[in-house]
C-alpha cells in the first residue's frame, strides 16, 4: 500500500558549508541522510525525519537546518493537519496511534496564570547569598501529635519512617527498557550528587545500579517486574504505581524486541517476551485491597520505609487521594496529564486526565479539610518546566515534585516524541546498545545536577524575595500566589485570589 503520509520536517543542507563528512549519516538513527554514490552528493529521505536535531547539533560545519515542513493542506480549523495525519496512519495500519512524551495540546497551563509574591517593606526580603536558606524536605507521614518524653530514656511517640532530600526536586519514574541503562545510571548518579531521589520506574532495578540505594525509589506496579525482597529492601522508598498522568487507567506494553538480555534480567522475564503491565493491579480492586498491598510492602520492609502511592490526576483525584491516605500510604504522588511517557496511545495521552495544578490544589485542600494532610506527603508530577513551576506547586500544597521531561531535556532530549520507537538518536530512550552508548552517564549526570542546582538557586532567590527562609514555610501557603486571567471557578479550585485583590 502506498503511504500517504507526508514529511513532517524538511532538511536544508547548505552546500557551501557541507564538507560531505557524512557525520549526519552516522548520527541519524532514522536513516534520513545518505550519500549518493552516483551523483557524489549527500541526499535526504526527509519523510523519515522526526525533527530531533541530532544531525544539526553534530554537523561540524553547521550546514544543516531542520524546519517543520512548509507544505500545508487547505487550512481547516476542525480538520487540523494532525487529525489528517493520524487518520492516514490508522488507515494504513489499523492500529492504535502511539506517542512518546507528555500531552502537547494547548490546554491551559495554569502555571502561566499564577504569579508569585514578593515582600517589600513590612516583611523584608532575605538575601540567600548571605543568609541560610532551607530547601531540605522530609517525605513521609507525620505523627498525629508530637509526644515528648516525660523522663530521660523514656520512649517518645513512635515516628513513622521519613526520607530527607536536600532539594524538593525528585527525578521521575522512568524504567530501564523505556530509557537506556546509561540514562538510568545518569539519573541515579545525579540524584546522589544533588542529594535527592530517583525513581526506577516499573522495569526493575539493574544489579549494577544497586549502589545508589539510598537515593532510589522503587516502583511496584501491575507487572511486578523485577520486584523481589532485595529490590524492596535496598531502596529508600517503595512506590505503588496505580496510574500515570500520560496514560491514566491503562497499562503498558514494552514490546518484545526491546526486551534485550539485560532488560530481561532486570525485569525477570525471558528475553524477547512482551513485558505486559496490566491496566489494574490484580490484587487491588478497592481501597481496602490497596491498603492490603501497602501493608504487605511495609511488612516486607519492616516498616522501615515510607510507602508511596502514585495515581494519575483525574476528575475525582481528591476523593481517591483521601482513600489512599486512609489506606495507609505515607506519600501520595499525583501525576498530571502533561507527564511524560515512553509510549502511550496518543488518544489517551491527549484526552484523559486533568492538569496537575488543579488536581494538586484540590487534593491538598481536601486532605486539609479532612484533617489528614499530615498523614502523607504529596509529590506533584507532570510537566514542570522551570523553578517557578516547582515553587508554585509547593505553594499549592506539594511537598516535593518529580521532574522527568526537564531532566531528559537537560541530557539532550529535544521532545521529538519518538521514544516508543527505541531509536532515540540521543541515546536516552534507546534500546539499541550502539545508540545507548552515545549517552555518557557522567556527562549526562552533570547536566542534570547542574539543572537541579540552577533551579535551587532560583528557588532560594524567589523564597528570599518573599521574605521566607525555609521552603516549609511556603508549603501550601496560597496567599503567596495570585491568579491572572482565570475564571472564578478556576480561582476557587486553585484556592487563590485574583491578582490585585
Amino acid at each position, binding site marked *: 500500500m502506498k503511504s500517504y503520509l507526508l514529511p513532517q520536517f524538511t532538511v536544508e543542507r547548505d552546500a557551501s558549508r557541507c564538507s560531505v563528512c557524512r557525520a549526519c549519516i552516522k548520527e541519524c538513527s532514522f536513516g534520513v541522510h545518505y550519500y549518493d554514490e552516483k551523483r557524489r552528493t549527500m541526499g535526504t529521505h526527509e519523510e523519515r525525519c522526526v525533527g530531533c536535531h541530532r544531525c544539526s547539533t553534530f554537523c561540524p560545519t553547521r550546514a544543516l537546518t531542520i524546519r517543520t515542513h512548509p507544505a500545508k493542506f487547505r487550512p481547516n480549523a476542525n480538520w487540523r493537519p494532525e487529525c489528517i495525519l493520524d487518520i492516514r496512519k490508522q488507515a494504513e495500519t489499523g*492500529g492504535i496511534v502511539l506517542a512518546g512524551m507528555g500531552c502537547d495540546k494547548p490546554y491551559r497551563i495554569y502555571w502561566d496564570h499564577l504569579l508569585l509574591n514578593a515582600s517589600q517593606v513590612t516583611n523584608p526580603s532575605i538575601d540567600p547569598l548571605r543568609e541560610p536558606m532551607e530547601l531540605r524536605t522530609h517525605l513521609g507521614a507525620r505523627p498525629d501529635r508530637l509526644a515528648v518524653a516525660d523522663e530521660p530514656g523514656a520512649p517518645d511517640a513512635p515516628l513513622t519512617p521519613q526520607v530527607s532530600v536536600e532539594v524538593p526536586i525528585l527525578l521521575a519514574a522512568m524504567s530501564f527498557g523505556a530509557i537506556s541503562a546509561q540514562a538510568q545510571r545518569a539519573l541515579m548518579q545525579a540524584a546522589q550528587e544533588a542529594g535527592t531521589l530517583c525513581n526506577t520506574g516499573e522495569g526493575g532495578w539493574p544489579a549494577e545500579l544497586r549502589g545508589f540505594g539510598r537515593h532510589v525509589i522503587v516502583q511496584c506496579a501491575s507487572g511486578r517486574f523485577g520486584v523481589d525482597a532485595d529490590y524492596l529492601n535496598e531502596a529508600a522508598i517503595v512506590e505503588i504505581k496505580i496510574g500515570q498522568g500520560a496514560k491514566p487507567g491503562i497499562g503498558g506494553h514494552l514490546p518484545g524486541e526491546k526486551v534485550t538480555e539485560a532488560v530481561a534480567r532486570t525485569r525477570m522475564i525471558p528475553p524477547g517476551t512482551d513485558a505486559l503491565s496490566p491496566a489494574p493491579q490484580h490484587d487491588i480492586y478497592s481501597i481496602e485491597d490497596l491498603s492490603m498491598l501497602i501493608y*504487605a510492602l511495609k511488612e516486607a520492609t*519492616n516498616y522501615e520505609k515510607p510507602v508511596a502511592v502514585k495515581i494519575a490526576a483525574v476528575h475525582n483525584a481528591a476523593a481517591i487521594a483521601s482513600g489512599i491516605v486512609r489506606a495507609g500510604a505515607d506519600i501520595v504522588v499525583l501525576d498530571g496529564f502533561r507527564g511524560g511517557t515512553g509510549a502511550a496511545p496518543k488518544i489517551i495521552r491527549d484526552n484523559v486526565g486533568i492538569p496537575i495544578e488543579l488536581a494538586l490544589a484540590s487534593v491538598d485542600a481536601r486532605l486539609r479539610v479532612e484533617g489528614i494532610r499530615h498523614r502523607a506527603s504529596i509529590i506533584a508530577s507532570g510537566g514542570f518546566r522551570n523553578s517557578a513551576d516547582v515553587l508554585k506547586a509547593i505553594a499549592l500544597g506539594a511537598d516535593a515534585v518529580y521532574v522527568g521531561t526537564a531532566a531528559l531535556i537537560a541530557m539532550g532530549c529535544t521532545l521529538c516524541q519518538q521514544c516508543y520507537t527505541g531509536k532515540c538518536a540521543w541515546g536516552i530512550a534507546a534500546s539499541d546498545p550502539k545508540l545507548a552508548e552515545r549517552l555518557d552517564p557522567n556527562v549526562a549526570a552533570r547536566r542534570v545536577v547542574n539543572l537541579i542546582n540552577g533551579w535551587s538557586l532560583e528557588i532560594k532567590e524567589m523564597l528570599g524575595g518573599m521574605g521566607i527562609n525555609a521552603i516549609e514555610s511556603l508549603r501550601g501557603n496560597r496567599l503567596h500566589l495570585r491568579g491572572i486571567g482565570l475564571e472564578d471557578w478556576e480561582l476557587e479550585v486553585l484556592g487563590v485570589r485574583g491578582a490585585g485583590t
Partner: protein
Amino acid sequence: MTWHGVWAGDCAADPEKGRGEGRGDGNSREAAPRRVFCDETGVLTIDARGLTYRELNHVLRAHVRDGARAIAVRNVAGQRYIGTNLGRLRYPVTVEIHGTPGSDLGAFMDGPRLTVFGNAQDCVGNTMTSGEIVVHGRAGDVVAMSMRGGAIFIRDDVGSRCAIHMKEYGDRKPLVVIGGTAHDFLGEYMAGGTVIMLGLDLAPGERHRACFVGTGMHGGRIFIRGSIEAYQVGREVELAEPDSRDQETIMSAVERFCTFFGTDFDKIANSEFLRLHARSHRPYGRLYGA
C-alpha cells in the same frame, strides 16, 4: 499434638532478646510476645489467638532471628502476611499454620516453607520469590499473582485469577499445583512458570468450569487433568498434548503433591493431561500502528 507446654523462656528463642538490633525491630515497641510454647517434639509453638497480624509476624521474625527454624502457629484466624520477610536463610524456616491465615500469605516471601492446616484466603504467594506453600484445604482468589519462584500446592480448589502474571527468568521457575479445580481467568496474562490442575474433586466425566483460562497468556505452561472445552480458554492459548519432558515435570510435581496430602499417586499417574501454552510471546505485537 496436645496443647501443653512451657513458656518462651525455656525455649531457645526469646522474642524480647535482640530488641533494637538492626532490622526486624521496626515494630518492637508495640508487639508484646504472648503465649509461646515448645511442644513435646521440641517444635516452637505460638498461640496466635488475639494477636494482630503485626504482632504475630513480629513475634515470628523475632524467633527466627534468634535461631528458631521450625515453628508451629496455632489458632490462626485471619492474620495476614504470614511468611512475608521471614528469614532468607540457607536452611529455610518451616512454619506450620493451624487455622485460617489471612490474605497475602507468603507475599513477597523469599525462602520459608509454610504448611497450612486449613483453608487460605486471597493472594496466597503474592509476588513470591522463593519458598514453598502447602495448603491442606482450599485457597481464595489471585493465588500466585506475579509469583516468580518457589512452589505452591493447594489440596482443593482455588478462586479466580490463579497464577495471574506468573513469570519466570533463568532458573527461577515457579510451580503451582491445584488438587481440585479453579474459577475463571486461571493463568491470565501468564508469562512463565508451570500450573498443574488435577481436578481430583471432579466427578467422572465432569469438566472444569473455569472460563477465560490463559487469557493474555504469553509464556509458561498449564497442564490440566480432566476435560475442558475449547471455548473455555483464551484466544492467546494453544492446546496441545504434553511431551515426554512435560510428563516428567507433571509426574515429579504430582509425586510431591501426593506426599504432602497422602493422595494415591497411582490414581493420577496414568491420567491424561492437556497442555496449554501461549501461541505467541508477543500477543499484542500488532496492536499499534505507530
